[in-house]
């Protein structure tokens, strides 16, 4: 190489080095920005879920602790009225029956919003109480197996409960399954939730290209706030499996 060519080569080397530094800086900025965006997103989701659960708990408590006793008192007062006319007595009996139905319905709504047993008795007992009720309501056979009984935080218990409810709901509403297997394993290090249904399944590609349902986004959001991983295996016509792992 003559001196001009050497100068061109040195200039090319310098230009190449500058290009490399710019590209590296760009990539590091992307990584840093993604971490920041991810953290903010998780904080936002966490705050939204906590606010939602707080509001549900408040409404459930108000219904159960305030409206329930009020209706009971009303029923007691109505029944205390002394009537001689048989048609009046029939009216009172009818009103009393309506109040009983209202109290039962309020308990159900309160349980759906936030089961009181969830915090008092824990996740496993609440699920064991809920699953027979769900089987009466929906045409699906649910098999629930569990192992381990670690000390889970209240937030985690509520999130896992909501995830399981959402999976049952999806199985009944979308998968058209007749059987659902639920397995919950709690170890010292992680919680593993595995589910499998015999429903119609769905296509990953189509699910990705179309906007995914709100229920599925809820599952992902709740798994994310617990820093967990959600793995989904579904093939059209061959059922759907969820595998969720939450570190403790």
């Amino acid at each position: 190489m003559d001196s001009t060519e050497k100068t061109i080569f040195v200039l090319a080397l310098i230009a190449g080095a500058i290009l490399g530094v710019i590209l590296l800086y760009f990539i590091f900025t992307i990584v840093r920005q993604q971490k920041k965006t991810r953290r903010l997103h998780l904080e936002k989701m966490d705050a939204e879920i906590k606010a939602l659960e707080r509001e549900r708990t408040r409404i459930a408590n108000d219904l159960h602790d305030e409206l329930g006793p009020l209706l009971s008192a009303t029923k007691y007062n109505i029944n205390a009225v002394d009537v001689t006319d048989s048609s009046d007595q029939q009216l009172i009996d009818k009103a009393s029956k309506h109040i009983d139905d209202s109290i039962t319905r309020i308990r159900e709504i309160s349980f759906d919003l936030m089961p009181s047993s969830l915090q008092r008795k824990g996740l496993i007992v609440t699920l064991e109480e809920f699953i027979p009720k769900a089987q009466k309501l929906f045409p699906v056979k649910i098999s629930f197996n569990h192992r381990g009984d670690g000390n889970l935080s209240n937030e985690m218990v509520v999130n896992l409960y909501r995830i399981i409810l959402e999976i049952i709901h999806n199985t009944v509403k979308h998968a058209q399954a007749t059987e659902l297997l639920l397995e919950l394993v709690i170890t010292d290090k992680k919680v593993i939730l595995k589910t499998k249904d015999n429903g119609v399944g769905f296509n990953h590609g189509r699910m990705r290209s179309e906007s995914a349902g709100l229920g599925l986004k809820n599952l992902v959001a709740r798994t994310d706030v617990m820093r967990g991983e959600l793995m989904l295996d579904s093939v059209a016509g061959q059922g759907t499996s969820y595998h969720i792992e939450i570190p403790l």
Partner: protein
Amino acid sequence: MSLFEVASIIGFSIVFAAVLGLIIFRKIVPAYQPFIYIVWLGLFNHSLSLLMVRTTGSNAVNGNIFVLAEALLYVWFFSNMGLFSKKKLQTPILIGVLLTAWIFDNLIIHSLRTPNAGYRIVACFIMIFIAIEQLISLIATARKSLVRNSLFIICCGMLFYFSYKAFIEVFFLIEVSSGIKLITAIYSIFVVINCSVNLLFFFAVLWIPRKKQYLFSL
């Protein structure tokens, strides 16, 4: 050892990614398969280039066809990744631009038998823009750390590879005919970049999501 021999040996660094791709091909999420085709195509073209140089003295023909096939496979791959899902016309437009530029440069202006830098520079810029678009999109959509994200590694590799390729091709475009030694020296920079990107692609293939462990990303 001459630069040609060094470049020939270093070029085979793509074999690691290619062999790994062969092993895991059936286990990966199908949307990633075009990337494995790109890796295999790279290895095939490198082997063919060596053969062509030894037999005919030039790898221009297969090189010109390779750069078109490679760019089209990248468009297919990123289309699978959902990069163009919101603008339905983007994929056909990109394919149209690539094909037009290739035909114009390789069949109309120049011959297929000469290494034509014009199309290669256009393709490099398109690939760089695609990689940047995908990287920006990953900031909002990636649920885990990017360091082990296959798509992120592929985009980084593309960014380095095509930036330096465009940089080198400029020297071929202006035909610094008097300085073959200069061209050879500048090409040596690209040999190092190519080897680094081939090794980066090994990790990209290694961390491609598997079918059974499909991480649902919304």
